[in-house]
């Protein structure tokens, strides 16, 4: 298990194409050029798992599909296979290039993990026969699909073996198209073939990556016997961590495009630190990207991601047992034990902010995630919140929270309405996430909201209404802000009298149907607008 403990790496090595003059079309065909690109790339970034610049069409092309190449883009299948063959990888020029590169990488980076990146039988079958066609045939002609899968399985097996014999010491299978198989058919058309491959490579670490939302096939993925599962960035790792056995790595899942390619340095640091602070408590967590980092991603961004990840792990590592205990006690609603755990952590020298993020807030976030998945209900979350505050009170004298809090949010129940339990819950949940919340109370008119805006400069104003009469006030308040020329603030609405449609008609920026979801919605809004990051 220790071999991949808390490692950090980006998936694939596509930005290495920036390190040489030649275009992608040449890199893929010339071992010298590819190796030089990779050598320079991995000298600049300290990744724990190395890749050899792989592309998804290689196996399909070797079996008969026609690929098109270009200087700046990754290759794609131009035409499906007319005649299908089962190649000897050593006789396929591009496969031989990769084997050559891996041999040289083994010499250059002998102590690193070097991945044999192979594509899954179902994905290759989809590229050979056409993606839509293969998905249709799952219903129309499953026998034909299975027969094709036997061939693509054999190709994948041979190619993986060839790469491992050439210097790879880790088998990575990406099977992006398998995520589109209906969950009840996943095992027969993907899982079982993957199991057969992983079984053959039991002596080295094996990883499976399937793109997209894989919640419904997690157990089948685990059932393949793979030693690590790499999750797409659309997945919430807190929601899957309990589904994964302790001896299987949870790998993921920073967004390779929004964060690594397009994100600012601040965003890369914040998102990476946040993910590690949530997941480092799991011994089987490995920090990576949620998919391959695009060729055009700035190298300095990749480096910053790796450095930040490594530093975050190092900061947390000595305190993981204490933080895990705090998080567990909050999650099970044990207030007194949480308080004691916080005191012990402080005595151990853990930074108060670390106790909040990795201990207290982690549990609330996990609870919220489980709530969204309908695996946990509101009372259980409220018990967690109580335990959170028991722990938080033990910290209050130790840090100046004012400067460290995230953006401020103003909340109020609108004029004519006195219902407040929902609003109060939103306030408390937001505070557990580290936001500064100004609660204007109930029966609040537009002038009071405008005065609060001028005083606190919130990034978000939350309006609550329980009755259909009072919800009319919401529109009046939003219009009053626009009349005053105030357009920088975002409005979110909630309460029994509001739904998505009403929210849209009011011109609100966000709506959530309950307090737990409201926090997720507000966090997303803040990320999108970048005003709260």
């Amino acid at each position, binding site marked *: 298990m220790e071999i991949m403990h808390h490692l950090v790496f980006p998936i694939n090595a596509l930005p290495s194409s920036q390190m040489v003059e030649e275009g992608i079309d040449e890199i893929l065909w010339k071992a010298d050029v590819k190796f030089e690109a990779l050598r320079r790339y991995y000298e600049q970034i300290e990744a724990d798992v190395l890749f050899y610049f792989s592309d998804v069409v290689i196996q399909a092309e070797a079996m008969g599909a026609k690929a098109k190449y270009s200087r700046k883009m990754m290759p794609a299948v131009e035409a499906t296979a007319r005649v299908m063959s089962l190649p000897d990888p050593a006789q396929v020029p591009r496969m031989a290039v990769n084997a050559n590169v891996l041999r040289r990488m083994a010499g250059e980076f002998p102590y690193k993990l070097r991945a044999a990146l192979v594509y899954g039988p179902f994905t290759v079958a989809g590229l050979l026969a056409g993606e839509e066609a293969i998905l249709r045939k799952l219903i129309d002609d499953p026998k034909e699909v299975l027969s094709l899968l036997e061939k693509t399985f054999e190709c994948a097996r041979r190619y993986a073996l060839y790469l491992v014999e050439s210097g790879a010491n880790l088998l990575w299978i990406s099977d992006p198209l398998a995520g589109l198989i209906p969950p009840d058919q996943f095992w027969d058309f993907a899982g079982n073939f993957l199991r057969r491959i992983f079984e053959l490579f039991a002596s080295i670490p094996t990883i499976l990556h399937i793109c997209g939302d894989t919640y419904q096939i997690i157990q089948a993925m685990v059932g393949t016997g793979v030693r690590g599962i790499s999750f797409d960035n659309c997945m919430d790792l807190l929601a899957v961590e309990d589904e994964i056995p302790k001896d299987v790595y949870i790998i993921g899942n920073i967004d390779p495009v929004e964060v690594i390619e397009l994100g600012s340095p601040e965003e890369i640091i914040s998102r990476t630190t946040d993910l590690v602070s949530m997941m480092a408590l799991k011994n089987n967590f490995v920090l990576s990207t949620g998919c391959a980092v695009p060729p055009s991603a700035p190298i300095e961004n990749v480096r910053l991601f790796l450095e930040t990840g490594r530093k975050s792990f190092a900061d947390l590592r000595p305190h993981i047992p204490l933080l895990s205990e705090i998080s567990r006690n909050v999650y099970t609603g044990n207030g007194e034990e949480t308080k004691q755990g916080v005191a012990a952590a402080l005595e151990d020298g853990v930074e108060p902010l670390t106790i909040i993020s990795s201990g207290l807030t982690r549990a609330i976030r996990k609870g919220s995630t489980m709530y969204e998945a309908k695996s946990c209900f509101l*009372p259980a979350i409220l018990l967690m*919140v109580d335990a959170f505050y028991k722990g938080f009170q033990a910290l209050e004298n130790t840090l100046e929270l004012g400067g460290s809090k995230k953006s401020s949010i103003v909340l109020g129940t609108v004029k004519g309405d*006195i*219902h407040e*339990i929902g609003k109060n819950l939103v306030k*408390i949940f937001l505070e557990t996430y580290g936001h500064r919340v100004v609660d204007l109370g109930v*029966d609040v008119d537009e002038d009071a909201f405008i005065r609060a805006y001028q005083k606190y400069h919130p990034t978000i104003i939350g309006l609550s209404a329980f*009755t259909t*009469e009072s919800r009319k006030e919401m529109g009046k308040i939003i219009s009053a802000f626009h009349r005053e020329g105030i357009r920088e603030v975002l409005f979110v609405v909630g309460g029994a009298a509001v739904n998505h449609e009403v929210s849209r008609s009011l011109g609100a920026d966000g709506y959530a149907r309950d307090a737990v979801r409201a926090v997720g919605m507000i966090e997303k809004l803040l990320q999108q607008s970048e005003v709260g990051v």
Partner: protein
Amino acid sequence: MLKYLRVPQDDQTMEIISSVLEETVGLIDIKKWSKCVLVDDFYELFHPYARSSKSISKLLGRAEHVYLIVVTLGEDLGNRAKEYFGKKEVFKGYILDRLGSFLVEEEVKKIDLEITRQCKEDGHATTHRYSPGYGDFSIKAQRTFFDLAKDTIPGLTISHGCLLSSEKTVSAIKGVIKSGY
């Protein structure tokens, strides 16, 4: 109610729930008011909100009399729930609030059942219960309930948005249909 709320069933939680239940008993101060009026008087009392409501016309189409009902649990329970929220004991505050809603509804239900039983004995049918704020029956109709019940229920207040206070207060109507209709 706890099952409906999906409260965790462990010992620690049950202990909290027991203490909240015990506390609730000492906090509620149930006050009820009800009156039976002729349907024409009802429309007059609740003008213009009753006549403009299609759902009320449909509900009371064949009714001759209308029962008016107000039930409140008093201020203390709601105030204590707020105190808990203020002290960041959210679970207790939430359970207290939900218990309040449940108990006031139970009290209204008792009156409703009693009216139904009595009418049945007299050979009359009844409509189901309906409250201001449902469908197109304006919440502003609560102003009339307030005017009628305030002397019987001291401490009952109404906001300018026509919400009765304490928060755990319910107002409702129920039609009586005489036999032969």
